[in-house]
């Protein structure tokens, strides 16, 4: 019985070590991500892994992204105040609509059912090149 108890305590200790190690690694990774993030200038629309469109974040606009064999799937990409979000979608899980607006490089909004990824990038748009010159 005593042996059984000490084994129980040992396992409990291992459980706690496991949880702490996972949380620590994740926190370190997130910290790295937060420290290295930078504001993006463009938003890329990827359908099935292929970039189909890129829009500047500087102009407010609404774009209807149609996917599926007969364009039956619709996601509305909204760019407002330098941030991109999916404001409407007819996908079953609505996870893309619930995702908050993104604006930092590498941030994504994913619609798994429609195979769409919205990704913030930092491509040079025409007017930026003008400024550089």
């Amino acid at each position: 019985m005593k042996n059984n108890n000490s084994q129980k305590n040992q396992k409990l200790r291992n459980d706690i070590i496991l949880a702490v190690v996972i949380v620590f690694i994740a926190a370190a990774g997130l910290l790295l991500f937060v420290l290295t993030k930078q504001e993006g200038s463009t938003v890329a629309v990827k359908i099935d892994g292929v970039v189909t469109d890129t829009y500047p974040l500087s102009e407010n606009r609404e774009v209807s992204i149609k996917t599926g064999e007969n364009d039956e799937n619709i996601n509305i990409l909204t760019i407002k105040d330098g941030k991109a979000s999916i404001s409407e979608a007819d996908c079953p899980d609505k996870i893309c609509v619930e995702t908050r607006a993104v604006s930092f490089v590498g941030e994504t909004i994913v619609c798994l059912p429609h195979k769409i990824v919205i990704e913030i990038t930092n491509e040079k748009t025409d007017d930026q090149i003008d400024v550089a010159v």
Partner: protein
Amino acid sequence: MKKHIRKTAVLSILTTVALVLSYVEAILPPIWAAVPGIKIGLPNIIIIFILYKTGLKDAITVSVIRLFLVALLFGNAMTLLYSAAGAILSIALMTLCKKINLFSMVGVSIVGGVAHNLGQILVAMAIFETSQIGYYMLVLAVTGTIAGVFVGIAASIILKRFEKIKI
């Protein structure tokens, strides 16, 4: 023969419970709107319970039936693909963790919760050919750990209640 029928009946009931828990989780409001996809993994309570009570084979059977029913009732082929990846990785790593006998049910459940999220993210990364979703995994690792603690405690309570009942 009689024992076999009894076991089938009990496993059917457990599958139904897991299915109801999936449904409850699907209609619950999002836990944290900033990071969608966070789930407690309520059905995992049943899967872990079966894993400890009757073994791996039954856990896989119930898990597979649940996956297909969930896809059929409130999902599609796409959601089936990534929830299946999560479930397979989760059961595989939980079985491994149980075998090495270093952790209690709570530790095993933590591994299951994190592995479930990891499996889904890996499929998403493969489908979208982007590694950028990776940081998302870091948030889900933390939430998976917290959820795993609760799921593990719940499963061990149920296992204790069923201690004297043979399946």
